């Protein structure tokens, strides 16, 4: 049914290799923002942000509420298009191609970028159908069951649900639901996975399972994760970007550097909890 909407026309990824701005990050760039400004009506949510996000690494976006982290994330897969009043200026490059170019189909773009939301949002369908959703809409004609199994394993959920693939995804616990959403996101084999505070609605045990999982995911995918939780960012990410009020990117560096020896006083204050 969805053959007509196939996605293989978008872009190839391996275009650009590391930039000289960040000597400590010799990796290839997966996503790059250039002079990005985002407005909701007259209100500015992202203020002139430029950054390069390395491939196969975990990049954390941290900062106080309302500083534009989610907005930034939504620019990458153009989910901001769904918000009528949202206006984006500047470039977001994904594999060297500006996703805001006129010839980019946002639907095709999103098939290469998975997304996991704050609140687990499995579909009211069976576990199998949840994971196979992306395959179904993309008209995947390989072995769906094998893919479902592989993805559930990738999301560290297979052992818990292998006997109940046909029961509803809503019957799972919150943490399992979130891992189901991760399985759903990785099933179509995207290149980047965006996560918007994926553990903030979960209890600590469930959250730590997801944290472990994120580590593994970075072997295959580029993970960009928004988090409120400083320890979490420190534990799981390779690179950390600190946004502060007004949508400004204040500091962006290796995670160890940010947490041990930040350049900016404001960042240190924020990390040590003096404000934010």
């Amino acid at each position, binding site marked *: 049914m969805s053959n007509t909407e196939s996605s293989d026309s978008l872009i190839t990824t391996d275009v650009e290799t590391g930039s000289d701005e960040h000597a400590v990050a010799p990796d290839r760039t997966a996503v790059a923002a250039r002079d990005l400004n985002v407005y909701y009506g007259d209100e500015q949510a992202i203020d002139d942000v430029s950054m390069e996000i390395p491939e196969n690494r975990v990049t954390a976006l941290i900062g106080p509420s309302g500083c534009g982290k989610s907005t930034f994330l939504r620019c990458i897969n153009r989910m901001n298009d769904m918000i009528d009043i949202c206006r984006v200026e500047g470039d977001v490059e994904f594999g060297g191609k500006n996703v805001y170019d006129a010839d980019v189909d946002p639907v095709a773009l999103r098939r290469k970028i998975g997304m996991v939301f704050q609140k687990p*949002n*499995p579909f009211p369908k069976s576990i199998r159908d949840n994971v196979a959703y992306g395959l179904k809409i993309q008209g995947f004609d390989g072995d769906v069951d094998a893919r479902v199994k592989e993805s559930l394993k990738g999301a560290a959920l297979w052992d818990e649900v292998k006997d109940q693939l046909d029961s509803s995804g809503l019957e799972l616990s919150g943490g399992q639901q979130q891992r189901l959403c991760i399985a*759903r996101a990785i099933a179509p084999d995207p290149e980047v996975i965006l996560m918007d505070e994926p553990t903030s609605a979960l209890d600590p045990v469930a959250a730590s399972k997801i944290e472990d999982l994120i580590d593994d995911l970075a072997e295959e995918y580029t993970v960009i994760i928004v988090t409120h939780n400083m320890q979490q960012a420190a534990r799981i990410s390779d690179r950390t970007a600190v946004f502060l009020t007004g949508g400004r990117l204040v500091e962006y560096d290796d995670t160890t550097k940010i947490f041990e020896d930040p350049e900016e006083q404001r960042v240190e204050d924020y990390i040590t909890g003096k404000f934010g």
Partner: protein
Amino acid sequence: MATDTDTGTASAEGFGEVSRVRGIIFEYLSLGASVLGIFALAVLLVYVTIDAFDLTNASPEWLLTYFLTLVVPFLAFCLYSANDRELTRRAAGVLGGGLVAVAVVFTAIEAFVTQIPRLSWQLAYLFVVVFPLTGYVTYVGSSGRVGGVGFGLVGRLIGGTAIGLALAVLFLVFDARLWFLAYTLGIVPALASYAYGRFRERPGASTAAVPVGIVGVLVAVFLRPVIDTYPTTAFIYLWTLAIPIAAAGALVVGARGSRTEAIAAGGVPLALATVVGLFGGILGLGVGGPNALLVIAVAGVPTAVYLQRVFDAGDGVIGLGLPVLLVVGALVGALVVEAFGFPAPDPWIDGSFITEAPSRTPADAGLYPAIVGSVIIIAMVAVLSFLLGVGTSVFLEEYTANSGIVGALTRLLQINIANLAAIPSVVYGLLGLGLFANLLGLGYGTAVTVSLTLSLLILPITIISAQEAIRSVPDDLRRGSDAMGATRWQTTKNVVLPEAFPGILTGTILALGRAIGETAPLIMVGAATTVFSAPNSLFDKYSAMPMQIYAWAGFPQADFRYGVVAAGVITLLIILVGMNGTAILLRNRAERGT
């Protein structure tokens, strides 16, 4: 609830008091008003029932006989299923105590206050105590395992029969031969192509199914006048309906049971339908012909599938005895009444009322053509308003922007739809008369004109309730689907519509309930009050149940105005309740499915 917050002055000893007088007054006034409304309706229904079944002429012996052979065993069945000692004790208490109480109060009122027309204390007992108690016990009993099985079986038998009959009615006007060609040339190849693609992993073949089907149907339309020998109607029903239904039943059973069970679940009802339908006349079974075939297949297959499931689960199997209990009870009752010669009522509503045409003598009057008209009209209205309503609401909710010129236009449209819902039905009648009957020349009072008019009439309600259902689908789910790279249409089809479906169904059914009882727009577009034979094309002159009832209410003979009208009203209500009940079941199932 209204609660008042008038604070009194706090005294030194305590916290003082907060006056709730206004809240309490409000509470009791609303309670009183609703009780009064329901009471009035109940009284009306009681009298309508009494008239329709001629219960004034039922002798106490007659009532007692059926009470003992039908009501008591049924109550016992429900109580057994509920398996609740306390409930059984209370039910017995209510039955016994109620008898005394009603008898005393009734006699007292008759003696000291006023004569109560057309009611005896036995009837009063029936309506005030027995029916409500039976309703309650049924409700409780049906949630038990045994009761659930019993009612599930009875429901499938009755529902299947009703659907089978409704299909037979539809084939009075829809061309069975065209359906035969379209099914053979369009639907079968399309299904085959789809299945081939699915099971042989050839997506191409699945995609080809729709075009193959469309071409086949077009060819069928073209060939219909060209070909002039056709199989008999019974054979057409067998090939196009009974066999696929049996196959579907077998597939359902096959998915969870053994191969033999699957073949039995599909094969036994199919064989029965074939024997009775094709050879019933020859074998002298008393029943036969295409309609019998249809009913047996449509009611039999789901029943067989259900039986397999119950036996498989092995729980509450004894509940399957419920239909037997009821049939035996009715037969024994009839025998006893016959043997002792108890004076029995002569109900206005009986077999011939349902199956015969209107007449000038009340005793011969029948509702058949009007029932057929209503069924056909409702079927068309259901399809039209569902498609239009869902289409429009999906468009308004999922596709139009909220801002800019499009947003403003949408809001304008929205306000207009809300206002359209408030326009009197006569005005829609006028619209139907002008647009469909006159301008488009679809004819006065034809099924097409009437259905289009009624669809238009309920469209605003369908749209608004469907919108409500669509809006209640959490945005999270849409975002989740969008972020997977689904197109708007894929999100709508895969996520939004399945979630909204139960709500959409509820709204549509409520609206249909309104359409089935409408008279004013029917009068406006020239529907007949009385037709003497069932229509056999969509462009015949139609009548509908409310029209016929309205006509009878104006006849000079009292028997028409009381008995026949009451019988018509009861028929209408039964069909309506049946329709709503089916819809509620479907909806509950859909809700459970998700």
